[in-house]
């Protein structure tokens, strides 16, 4: 029996030790993540969302690869695949654009939820305005997008495979949403302070942005639904309180390196984006004083001596169709670290006012179409006065090591557009608004395209709406027209296939770069 006593004792010992550790109530403490917090205030999450949003809109992807080079503001000099409309190597970029843009809206949703519980309507309104801005960009990029079922990933009954909504439905929803956001704003109530990197919490300005975005939404419908567009545009203009001064421009304020504009960041490592020959030659033919702002002088001395200081690159050509020294980089202002990322500017609003007048919908403040048109151009040029330029160019100090690669010559930096240059420019018959309504609309569209330089995505979108000219694809392009949309990300094929197939059916021409949109001509 002795052996069994020993056995019993042994088993007991093991059980006691194990028992003590097995029912460990400290497990939850052990599994508590010590590395990151479970909540964060809007003062830290809102500026991050603003930054993420603008980085996406201004990054190589939307601003340059698909927007800017397709609308021929920029051209690529090497690895010209996107400029030849061959996106087979950019699957990852499209996946990331999609994920990041939705991600921003999820973040904004969370900020809204938090602000609602804290009773801060102004922060709710800011988040809503940015959400609408973002969704409009997304539907303008892809067409039908998940909207009504989007952002339900962490709902109590999560939906991780949202269906797509038609572009029409998205637009209808966005218009209602931006109106509600504008109505929610009360400038006398608390908002958020300097952590808002767009307007520093100035709700009067946020209200102007909301109204201006509403104008943009309605104007986009000018071709497909002129009735709604006219009524909407008229109401917004009558109501006023829009961005009409460059002081009120909505932009994300980047800072000095390394907190810089993504275009500048791109230039830190490579300079394969140049000004397009289409843009450069248009500016030259119009004697546009913005040319020295939009482009950097060529480095080739003999060209300079011949007075040929600015030279664009042919879109969609072979690699290195011209030696690098003989073409112009994108202007120093645009690659400067602190160049703001614009959501919307006064000149765009004024082009819409002029367009409404040409179309005979409404004369803002009783002004004529010509007056409004001239005012829009003037406002665009005034963005580049000496003061405004220098404030940004100071962040691009050629002696800072990171800018060494650019081989910048500060003495060649633009000196700013003067009042007399503006007056002379507007006096030119080639600039003055004239001809039939259709001709005037084309002229206005071309001026808007010039004014939107640096906002590649918006410029391409407006081109698709009002096509001032038929841009010619480059010699090696794989399509015979400029792309009118971006294909859906591959992830939607692999992860959301049923809804993806349904969305393809909603598009005229399937999931191609040439599919036409609801609001297109």
């Amino acid at each position: 029996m002795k052996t069994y006593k020993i056995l019993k004792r042994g088993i007991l010992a093991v059980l006691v030790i194990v028992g003590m550790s097995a029912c460990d109530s400290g497990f939850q403490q052990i599994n508590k993540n010590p590395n990151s917090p479970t909540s964060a205030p809007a003062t830290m999450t809102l500026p991050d969302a603003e930054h993420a949003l603008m980085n996406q809109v201004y990054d190589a992807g939307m601003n340059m690869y698909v927007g800017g080079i397709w609308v021929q503001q920029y051209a690529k000099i090497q690895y010209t695949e996107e400029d030849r409309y061959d996106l087979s190597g950019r699957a990852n970029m499209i996946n990331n654009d999609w994920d990041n843009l939705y991600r921003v809206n999820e973040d904004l949703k969370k900020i809204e939820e938090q602000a609602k519980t804290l009773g801060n309507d102004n922060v709710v309104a800011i988040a809503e305005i940015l959400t609408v801005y973002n969704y409009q960009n997304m539907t303008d990029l892809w067409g039908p997008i998940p909207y009504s079922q989007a952002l339900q990933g962490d709902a109590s009954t999560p939906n991780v495979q949202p269906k797509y909504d038609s572009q029409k439905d998205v637009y209808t929803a966005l218009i209602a949403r931006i109106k509600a956001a504008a109505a929610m704003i009360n400038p006398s109530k608390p908002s958020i302070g300097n952590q808002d990197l767009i307007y520093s919490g100035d709700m009067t300005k946020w209200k102007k942005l909301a109204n201006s975005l509403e104008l943009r939404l309605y104007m986009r419908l000018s071709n497909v639904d002129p009735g709604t567009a006219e009524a909407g545009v008229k109401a917004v203009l009558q109501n006023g309180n829009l961005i009409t001064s460059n002081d009120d421009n909505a932009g994300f304020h980047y800072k000095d390196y390394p907190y810089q504009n993504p275009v500048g960041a791109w230039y830190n490592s490579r300079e394969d984006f140049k000004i397009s020959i289409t843009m450069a030659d248009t500016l030259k033919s119009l004697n546009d004083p913005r040319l020295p702002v939009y482009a950097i002088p060529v480095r080739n001395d003999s060209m300079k001596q011949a007075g040929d200081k600015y030279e664009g690159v042919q879109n969609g050509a072979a690699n290195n169709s011209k030696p690098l020294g003989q073409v112009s980089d994108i202007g120093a202002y645009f690659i400067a670290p602190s160049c703001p990322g614009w959501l919307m500017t006064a000149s765009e609003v004024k082009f819409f006012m002029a367009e409404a007048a040409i179309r005979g919908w409404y004369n803002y403040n009783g002004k004529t179409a010509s007056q409004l048109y001239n005012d829009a151009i003037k406002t665009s040029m005034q963005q580049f006065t000496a003061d405004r330029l220098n404030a940004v160019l100071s962040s691009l100090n050629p002696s800072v090591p990171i800018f060494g690669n650019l081989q910048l010559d500060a003495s060649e930096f633009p000196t700013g557009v003067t009042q007399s240059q503006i007056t002379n420019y507007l006096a030119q018959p080639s600039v003055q608004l004239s001809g039939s309504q259709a001709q005037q609309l084309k002229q206005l569209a071309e001026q808007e395209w010039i004014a939107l330089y640096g906002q590649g995505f918006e410029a391409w979108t407006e081109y698709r709406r009002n096509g001032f000219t038929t841009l010619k694809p480059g010699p090696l392009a794989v399509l015979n027209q400029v792309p009118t949309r971006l294909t859906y990300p591959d992830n939607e094929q692999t992860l959301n296939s049923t809804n993806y197939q349904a969305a393809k059916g909603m598009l005229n021409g399937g999931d191609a770069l040439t599919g036409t949109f609801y609001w297109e001509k």
Partner: protein
Amino acid sequence: MKKVLLNTLLVSCMLIVGMVSQVNAQQRNVKGKVTDASTGKSLPGVNVFVKGTTVGTATNANGAYSLSVPQSADSLVFSYIGYDAKSVAISGQTTINVQLSPSVEQLENVVVTAFGIKRKERSLGYSSQNVNTKSMESNRSANFVNNLQGKIAGVHITSSQGTPGSSTRIVLRGVSSLAGNNQPLFVVDGVPIDNSTFRSYNAYGGGPDYGNAAMDIDPDNIASINVLKGPNAAALYGSRAANGAIVITTKSGGPKNGKAVGISINSTTTFQQVAVLPNLQNLYGQGSDGQFQFVDGKGGGTNDGIDESWGPRLNGQKITQWWSNGKAVPWVAHPNNVKDYFNTGHTISNNFAISGGSKDNATYRLSFTNLSQAGTIPNSSLNRSNVALNTTAHLTDKLTATGNVSYIRLIGRNRPNVGYSSLNPMQQLTQWIGRQVDISKLRDFQNPDGTERNWNYNYHNNVFWETYKDFDKQTRDRIIGRIQLTYDFNNWLNLRGYTGTDTYRENRSRGIAVNDIAYSGLGHYFTGDYYVSQTTSDLILSADKDLTKDFHVSAQLGGESIYTIHNQTGATAPTLSVPGVYNLTNSGQPLVPDNYYSRKKVNSIYGSATIGYKDYLYLDLTGRNDWSSTLPQANNSYFYPSVSVSDVFTDMLGIKSDFLTFGKIRASWTRVGNDTNPYQLQATYASQGLFGSLPFYRLSTTIPNLNLKPEKTTSWELGTNLRFFKNRMGLDLTYYSRKTEDQILGVQIPGSSGFTHQFINAGEVDNKGIEVTFNATPVQSRDFTWDFTVNWAKNKNEVISLTKGVDSYQMASSWGVYLLSKPGEPIGTLWGRGWKYNSKGQRIMSGGIPERTSDLKNFGSYQPNWTGSFSNTFSYKNLSLSTLIDVQQGGHLYSVTNMFGHYTGILKSTLVGREKSASDTHVYPGVNEDGSPNTTAVTAEHFFHSSYYGLAGPNVYDASYVKLRQLELTYSLPKKLVNNSPFSRVELSLVGRNLWIIHKNVPNIDPESAFGNGNIQGFESNQIPSVRSFGFNVRLSL
């Protein structure tokens, strides 16, 4: 080279000293004959030894022997394969005739299973395979896991990059976990050790491959390796062994060969050469459209910013080049320019071990190994030292203490990044380079002002700049140790308690020089410490008793606690203020910190029982319950059982035949649970750093899951071991089926949900397979023996289901190709777009170039159809030759090297269409949409630019291979000679590894190409060429 010489000298000196210092003692002669006790036939080749010494001989063809024995000798030992050994006292006799009895028992392998329990192989109801560790000592690889290649059926081992000490991936019986770890558990002397890589590779690549942590195991110190293949075998190790276990026992002390102190020396020197390089063209140099002229190397001249090879034909015409200071110089080919970059590497490995003590009170073994390797990539190296001490002390009659400790120090230097990275020289050498570039001219990589001299200033570094100016250093200090106390209550019951730890601190530092093309030429420095500690403590009560004459019971009851800590602290200096000073205080920008801490605890209770009946029928039962801190409280406890049966039917049925010598069947069933990583249950906000002075925070992009359940793997297997013709032939057959359910996955979800990943329990993955090991000795004579072993395994892997709302599990993507796991298909299929074909299989062309499909298509899985190996050993007298051929059939691979090699025109295959001149146009084969032949001629440059980039179709290849993995020629110095020296054994070997790729289907690269040891595989991107290795080995035992 100096080191090699020194090494050789040292060994030679020892040999000579040994020979001279022989001892003459008084001798006498004993002779006799050895016969079979049952048949009376004489037995040739029986070993006859003086007990406790190495003095001995073997019987001749007639079974006769004659031996000169020292006066002091008291008995002789007769041993022969298949017979019981016999010890006979000499007691003055001069003729000793002996009869030996055949034995089955003698053949039994003893294997070490869970908790260091030694069991007879015949009693195991599941498959386990012992690995011959001998060749591991002589023909060693810096990563010992490579030495397992081809040795075990059903084990798929893939080495990754050709850099020193890069990681090796090992998968037993197929991939079962979609997202989790599929590596088996490595256990050294009962202590589970860490095998993490501390970085995850995405499909594009990553930083340097710092190797998997199990590579620290010193092959010289291994006594045995037992591979427990399925979860069946590993039920008792807990969740960590759900993918099988590699159970390693290190050599222990004690008297050896009758000597109180044994000394052994093992020295290997091998040389490494690059084995596979792309087949490059030598007709056209850098440029585009047949044009090139160098001015500034970034577009200032004619196409001089271009890093592709569509330039002028290499005809010796005079063209200004990067090194010619504006002078036009001959434009000629340098066919060896890629090969010339590489060095011949070498590896020197020396082991010195001393062991001794007495079985009665204490034994010890102390071993020191140093491995020093210089890679084929210039300036890259690895140095590892292992010191190990194993001791056992009998404190009292009943109390025994065991202590094992090993200290490992590893220093790896200047290993390049892997994958598509400008810090991987392969990005240039095998993709983006002008074919005319003379590598030797690049060796002078720096201008007097500190800037780079290079052939291109747009996108690339001078490869030698990267090699010599940038640096990377990995330093690891590691302790693996265990102390154990065993108390024997009596001869059948004992209590053991042990605690073991694997703890290491690793520093990784990387500096990028100022003026490097990366980081805008401003320099860069990162340094980070990684701390890993895993402590396992057990208390086990073991009983082992014959209940009756026929029934034997062995049982264990135990408890275990595992506590794991990971801590990571580092910082990056984004730029450097003063060139060449790699210190965080020299940062030109605010430092970017990196800090992460995690801990995890698992407590367990387990029990097992083996009931044996008459030594031929065995029943095994195990049960274990784990509590894991990583799971929600409601689900954190999970139980898993196993049952197995083994029946030696030849004994049970009393079969005694010369044909079927031994036969056993086995069956087992088991379930194993698995937990997850820490902190997956709650959403957190992650810092995005500072924007100026403003902190940015963002919600994590993964939806956490508060209701996670443990993963569940259920498996069963059936097998048989058969031996024929008195063990001249053996067959081991296993069929297994394994199902993993409720997998804990961080699945990628559509971004439109607001998140990109979600933690779920999902799906079911099945693995079914057959493993066959066949070995035979076709020839066995006194002087010549031929043994061979064939291993063959086929695993069928299928994702049965995922979960609602998840169409496919997306593991990775690269250049438009996706690695997916979808229901109905194996894990890891490559999806992408390809060329468009019509119903007749003709390629459809448009504008002279292939059209692409618009929807994604499946181009195959990375998992092989089957793997196999064929190893042979030929022994003639003291000479033995062993070879190992390793085969993989099937499996697919997306080759980025081939993709860009076509795009840039450096591959020989891009000469099609420009055989005569760069401006030629060519009609590439294909048809128009309507089926008529393509008639549009395009330039080769246009065709290859537009036909490969971003497509899976033309870039996915069959990864099959046949390789001569090992070759080894060993000469053991004859006993006669050795007997006159202080050595008990002297062996000299010529060794070779990866000598020859006998067959492969993918051009330009080695089909064996892993990215680290994770689940993202099937992508080859800028592979660092694999190496062939050859050299010699000297082993001495004193």
